[in-house]
């Protein structure tokens, strides 16, 4: 009788533990678990897309699709859809990749970042197929739909660089002008924000790439005028001095800008470097009669 009682107790205890484990499992946790295993397979394909077999690709896509089928409401479902499309992209199956990217945009329109990435990737697929015109349409759609996003700022330069690389100078010039106009609009509309700061950097990049140093210097001066107390303005002044010295080969102007930097921003971390540069200019060009400022030395 005691043994029967004990075994009933044991069985009840084991059932309770089992029930606890089953009832306790959340959908999200199960989705994460399945996703982890699927991502392990996915990592193998990313590591070496050419060497991965059709079977491995099928298994991985199947794993992601299973998760999407069982847990369609999961927060990271859009990432899984993107991974499926990316697998086709890596395996150079561009029409299928585009289909999956469009699927993502249809299913998850509220996930703006994912939709943007998907649109970029669609453009990339056309580029890989050497269909630049279609790629350009995709990229222009991103510029129109997401004008303030960082990928848009990059794309504007990217399009211009593409034409530059293929020696289509007219189109490149037109693209650079379009890019600069866009950046200028953002500077005007988003003053004092990170968008403005990023736009300035892109403008500087374009002018440096095109070796338009006078315009580079002009832009740096505009940054200093717009935000004179900011760290970026201080660095811009230092950059101007460096440009005059190293690129434009005008040591006297460079000396003047370094001096101005040291006076305006005495606590900046580049002051020591500026002083060194001034001393170097004074020594290298004695005929200019330049006198570097006396440095404050701390005697220990």
């Amino acid at each position, binding site marked *: 009788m005691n043994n029967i009682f004990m075994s009933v107790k044991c069985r009840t205890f084991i059932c309770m*533990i089992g029930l*606890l*484990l089953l*009832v*306790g*499992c*959340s959908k999200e*946790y199960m989705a*994460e*678990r399945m996703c*982890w295993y699927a991502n392990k397979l996915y990592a193998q394909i990313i590591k070496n897309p050419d060497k991965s077999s059709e079977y491995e690709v099928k298994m991985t896509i199947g794993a992601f699709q299973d998760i999407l089928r069982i847990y369609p409401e999961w927060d990271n479902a859009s990432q899984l859809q993107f991974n499926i499309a990316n697998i086709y992209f890596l395996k150079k199956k561009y029409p299928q990749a585009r289909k999956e990217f469009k699927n993502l945009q249809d299913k998850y329109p509220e996930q703006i970042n994912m939709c943007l990435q998907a649109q970029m990737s669609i453009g990339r697929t056309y580029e890989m197929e050497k269909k630049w015109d279609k790629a350009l349409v995709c990229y222009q759609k991103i510029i129109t739909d997401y004008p303030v996003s960082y990928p848009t700022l990059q794309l504007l330069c990217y399009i211009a660089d593409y034409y530059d690389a293929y020696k289509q100078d007219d189109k490149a010039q037109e693209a650079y002008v379009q890019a600069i106009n866009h950046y200028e609009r953002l500077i005007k509309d988003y003053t004092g924000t990170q968008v403005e700061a990023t736009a300035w950097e892109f403008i500087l990049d374009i002018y440096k790439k095109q070796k338009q140093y006078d315009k580079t210097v002009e832009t740096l001066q505009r940054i200093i005028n717009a935000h004179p107390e900011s760290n970026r303005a201080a660095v811009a002044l230092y950059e101007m001095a460096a440009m005059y010295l190293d690129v434009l080969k005008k040591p006297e102007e460079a000396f003047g800008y370094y001096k101005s930097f040291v006076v305006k921003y005495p606590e900046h971390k580049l002051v020591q470097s500026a002083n060194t540069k001034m001393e170097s200019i004074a020594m290298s060009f004695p005929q200019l009669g330049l006198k570097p400022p006396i440095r404050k030395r701390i005697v220990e």
Partner: protein
Amino acid sequence: MKGNLIDKLFFCGDVWKISFKSMWQCPAIFLPFAIITLCEIILLIILLLSPHPIMEPLLGPPIRRFFGEMFLHYPYNFSLLPTLFEYASLPLSLLLMPLMCAATVGMTAFVVNGEKAKLKKNLGLAVKKYVPSLFLWIIVLFIYICIFMLLKFLAVQCYPPALAKILHIPSWRMFTICQYLSLFVCLLVEPFLAYAIPVMILEKKKLFSAIKEGIIVGWSLYLPTIVLILVPALFGACMVLIKQKMLSFFINFLPESVLGVMAGGFILTLFIGVLMTTSLTVLFLIKRQGINE
């Protein structure tokens, strides 16, 4: 002297023989430590359920606060599990170990003397001596922490860079050496503390008398006690080395492998605990019976 040394080593073999015979004749000796293992398993299951709705309201906030949100998601919850278990099992061990150790000592004494060992009766006896046993464990823990802190102090504060250059041992390595040295010193000190519980339970002495008597017994049985503690501890050390590789199991195999390693640790701890306690109790009884004879 050499003959005595070998005799003592062979003597340990006899002690283990009697211990294994007792365990075989009366498997109920495993019950006290098995209860601790069961509690540890239940604790592990509770911690395992921390990302799930059933436990998340209770365990989620502290995990989120002290470790981060990512440890409430698969597979990172497994990487945190050993750490969480270490913290959670500390009070459990501190509260249950003195009780179960004392119960095992009592049961072993009954079996060695040819009587039937009953868990309930011995647990009752252990409960009566619970408070002094708990204090004893706290004193032992305090001594080990002092040893560790002293050697850490020597490694960090008293190891000048000049000496490091002469010995070609950088200070971080000296710190690791001192950590292992502290384990060695604890091992050398343990025989003096190992017999306090058998004295308390079997001879029904009070705490400080039991500690004094335990030190005397430990000194007289020093070498065999070291051997009886060291050999099972080596198995425990292997487990510690395996646990250190848990992260590589996690990365290279499955995150769930952490559970396997921890479960293996529980089972090994169960056997080591029972073996150590029974063998030391057997040695104590042989010593006492030898005096009585």
